[in-house]
């Protein structure tokens, strides 16, 4: 058991993604699968060599990584060489992808009140109210909108993400209210999925492709990695658009407001959702003045309007969308 702990830490030091500990049954299934992956190409390779040179020697198994030269079989030093290009990030703006369905996720709810104001107002009430206002604005602008909760109910993070995935949302917006120990801070900030620069793709290729060159399975995972990367960059662009509007709009009536910008963070709802998504901390409930503002419907409406403006700006940039009321 300790060996497993140490191995996980060593993996982390060598910047490999930690290996998942598998149950005995899944380990054996994986072993059989891996064996097949290695044995089939190995036997094929051995057969080819046996036929071509008349002896069945065991070849060295080589792991290739992107950008590395892959010799064509047979291993002839004079044979032409194929270089697998390193994958390049796809620019999603090339596809002019439109935004039609938006899933709004009012943070917390039910048994989970979230942060609390000094006057008894809960984060779950604020997020639900702001989300309903945002929904109304988006519906007016002809977006299709779904909400992970429309009442004061408990919804797990997994269910929220599955809801967004199940509704094939184009964008995911999780609405939250910040609470920080420093009561004088009045900040707004927006998060997107991150980090993206871990060597997950390299690790996958290295592990899945061991000894048999690239397989279709590993190539698919490689592509998955690239698309995850695209999703992250889209989420960042989306977050920047929303944060810009949030801060610019709320700062007008609230000069003390601090712009904490956009940040990447591994929130579960952002990891498990399959579309560009953000988690917006739209206000700071731990600040007394800000908490009082939040008790006013007009302030909540201005937050919803700012979220709408940011979302609309992002969607407009990706593909023109109908303007509000048109």
């Amino acid at each position: 058991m300790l060996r497993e702990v140490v191995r996980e830490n060593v993996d982390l030091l060598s910047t490999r993604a930690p290996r998942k500990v598998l149950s005995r049954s899944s380990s054996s299934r994986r072993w059989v699968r891996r064996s097949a992956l290695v044995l089939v190409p190995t036997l094929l390779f051995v057969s080819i060599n046996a036929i071509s040179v008349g002896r069945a020697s065991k070849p060295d198994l080589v792991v290739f990584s992107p950008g590395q030269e892959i010799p064509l079989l047979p291993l002839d030093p004079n044979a032409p060489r194929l270089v697998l290009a390193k994958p390049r990030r796809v620019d999603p703006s090339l596809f002019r992808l439109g935004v039609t369905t938006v899933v709004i996720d009012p943070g917390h709810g039910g048994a989970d009140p979230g942060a609390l104001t000094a006057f008894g107002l809960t984060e779950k009430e604020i997020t639900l109210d702001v989300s309903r206002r945002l929904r109304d604005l988006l519906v007016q602008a002809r977006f299709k909108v779904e909400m992970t909760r429309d009442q004061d109910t408990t919804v797990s993070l997994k269910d929220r993400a599955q809801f967004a995935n199940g509704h094939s949302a184009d964008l995911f917006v999780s609405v939250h209210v910040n609470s920080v120990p420093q009561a004088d801070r009045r900040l707004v900030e927006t998060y997107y999925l991150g980090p993206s620069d871990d060597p997950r793709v390299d690790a996958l290729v290295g592990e899945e492709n061991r000894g048999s060159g690239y397989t279709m399975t590993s190539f698919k995972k490689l592509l998955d990695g690239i698309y995850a990367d695209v999703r992250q960059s889209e989420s960042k662009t989306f977050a920047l658009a929303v944060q810009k509007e949030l801060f610019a709009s709320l700062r007008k009536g609230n000069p003390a407001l601090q712009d904490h910008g956009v940040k990447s963070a591994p929130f579960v709802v952002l990891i498990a959702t399959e579309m560009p998504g953000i988690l917006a901390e739209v206000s700071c409930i731990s600040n007394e003045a800000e908490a009082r503002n939040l008790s006013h419907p007009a302030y909540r409406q201005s937050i919803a309007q700012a979220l709408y403006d940011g979302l609309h700006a992002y969607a407009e940039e990706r593909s023109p969308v109908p303007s509000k009321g048109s």
Partner: protein
Amino acid sequence: MVAKKDVLHVGIDLGTSRSSITASNGATHVVDSYVGWPIDMVARKVVKKSVLFGKEALDNRPMLDLHRPLERGLIKEGSPKDEAAVRELLGHLISLAGAKEPQKVHAVVGVPAEALRVSRQHLRAAVKGVADALLIVSEPFAVAYGMDALLHAMIIDIGAGTTDFCVMNGRYPTDEDQRTLTHAGDSVDELLVTLIRTRYPEAKFSVHMVREWKERSSFVGEPRGSVMVTVPVNGKPTALDITAEMKRACESLVGPIVETMLDLISRVEPEYQEKVRHNIILAGGGSQVPGLSAALEKALIEVGNGRVRAVENPVFAGSNGGLAIALDAPDGDWEQLPG
């Protein structure tokens, strides 16, 4: 290879609220998980230190850039100050343990399970350089290891930022064996603040005072007496009865914990479920809430009874477990783990 006597082995529980250390030389220390840097030259002149820890930091908070680095059980990404705070806190704990030159320090650091799950790289960066060799484990695993509860057991570690669940099946726990809730000590404090303010709007008090009241008088079920506190109301010290508020705030933990506990038990292989039900261990500060074990045992009746017990020493259960891991880890393993 370094001889055992030339090494100080330490187990550290890096908690949201408190952090503790247990060392192989017998030293044990605990500090509140606050780290503060003087905000300017004046503050530095007043506090006479470049960095303050624990209660001292909390008491001087107006003059400090104060950080509680594992707020909500996670290091916030993109927060270098929080990373620095983790590093300072670990360095401070290790210095308290009293390693003697040229003794090397081999440390096992237990962190909230959620932090380990989602911020591994960040944690590693944050703790880099604080010891000669360092191993990071999840807190419930450290507790289980220290109590030798590695087979057919469930650890429920109720901390300040998170409540971590871990089912031990005789192997290193997978993600499927673990859960994390944000219903924990801090959420009880926040609810208690709201409830008291609602009932006594004129009363003046801070969340730190409420935390002290909770640590003194928390309970689930029937109260053993009235919970009375004294606070200024319109400038006059006034005694307030907060028994009902305390009960409601503390019992807000029960529902989510029961739900998660029963769900995890239902996922254990059927022939072992009864063994796990009878080997549930509460750890962390929340484990000491009177009546909580009984409430959880009551909930287990509907699935065939069970036994819930609390660790005897919640402050050091994690760090003691960390020390046990540190002493058991072979020297060859430590050589692979630079600090």
